[in-house]
């Protein structure tokens, strides 16, 4: 299991210096660490978070947005009619609720279709694992610089330490 502080430190080492989002239980440890470091600006909806990140990017920041995968649905229009067409990159840290069909009913459909959903939107993604973490971070930095569009890192349950291990 990756420690939350190590995860946040790796993002900071990559140059990420603007964090916003809407919480999820899987992301609880990461958000607590970001708040400890006074780095987190809370949003009330995921599309708002994505738009704030776009503004921060244009103001010279490297932004990351944390959200539950349900938030991908909420922020779909902003992601494609703002970030993608204007070439405004951001790192989406997305918790994969409903993965493998084991979760509350409201998470099951998005949990199943999320990869195809991002394929359709042409948003690149990768799933974080402890073994591949170094490569995952390198992939994020490279894709951010090269493609200048949003990219997603999926966080599955138990990969990064949560609030209640």
């Amino acid at each position, binding site marked *: 299991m990756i420690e939350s502080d190590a995860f946040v430190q790796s993002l900071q080492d990559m140059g990420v210096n603007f964090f916003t989002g809407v919480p999820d239980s899987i992301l609880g440890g990461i958000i607590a660490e970001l708040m400890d470091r006074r780095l987190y*600006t809370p949003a009330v909806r995921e599309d708002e978070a994505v738009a*704030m990140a776009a*503004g921060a990017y*244009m*103001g010279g920041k490297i932004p990351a947005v944390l959200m539950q995968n349900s938030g991908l649905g909420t922020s779909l*229009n902003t992601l494609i009619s703002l970030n993608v067409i204007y070439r405004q990159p951001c790192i989406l840290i997305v918790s994969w609720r409903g993965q493998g069909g084991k979760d509350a009913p409201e998470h099951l459909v998005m949990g199943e279709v999320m990869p195809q959903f991002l394929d359709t939107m042409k948003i690149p993604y990768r799933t974080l694992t402890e073994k591949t973490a170094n490569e995952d971070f390198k992939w994020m930095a490279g894709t951010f610089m090269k493609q200048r569009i949003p990219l997603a890192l999926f966080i599955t349950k138990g990969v990064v330490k949560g609030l209640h291990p």
Partner: protein
Amino acid sequence: MRPEQGTLISRAQAMAALLELLTDQPLIVCNGFPSREVQKMADRPTHFYMIGSMGNAPAIALGVALAKPHKQVVTFDGDGNVLMGMGTLATVGALKPKNFIHVVFDNEVYGTTGNQPTISNVVPLDKVAKAAGYVNVERVLDREDLIYEFKDLLKKDGPSMLLIKVNEFAEDAGRVVLDPPEITQRFMKAIE
């Protein structure tokens, strides 16, 4: 027809007056006619014209304001846009960025799609902003007042909202001509 409609100025007249008072402040303009009209009247590299992502103009402006705390950031917004992203009034009110000025041109209709009514005739958006925690909130109906109030807000710590009741008239203004990536690059360079 609304009782006050006959005496109101147009959004473009109100915008023209405000653009004269702005210099190099980053300005984020919402989608629809507002972006087209600003582009036609005074195109500046410090302008970011939104063409999609309705409801997100103040969130983009908030991101810029947080990234550039020493620059006063202005957003031109509409009533339909504010209603769509009303949660952002709460985010702004809670964060209280001092360098944030939210101008709302309230014509009570979705102008770009054919003047269908919004609900801002019965929901006073300035009062919503005040309740959400905006520090300065002004509602104006005519040109003299809007110039006076905007000058005053430029001198004050925000977050501030200037809500201007305007009529439904829209200028004959073409679509935003710059490519979106070009708008991003030009804006980033201009506010560096």
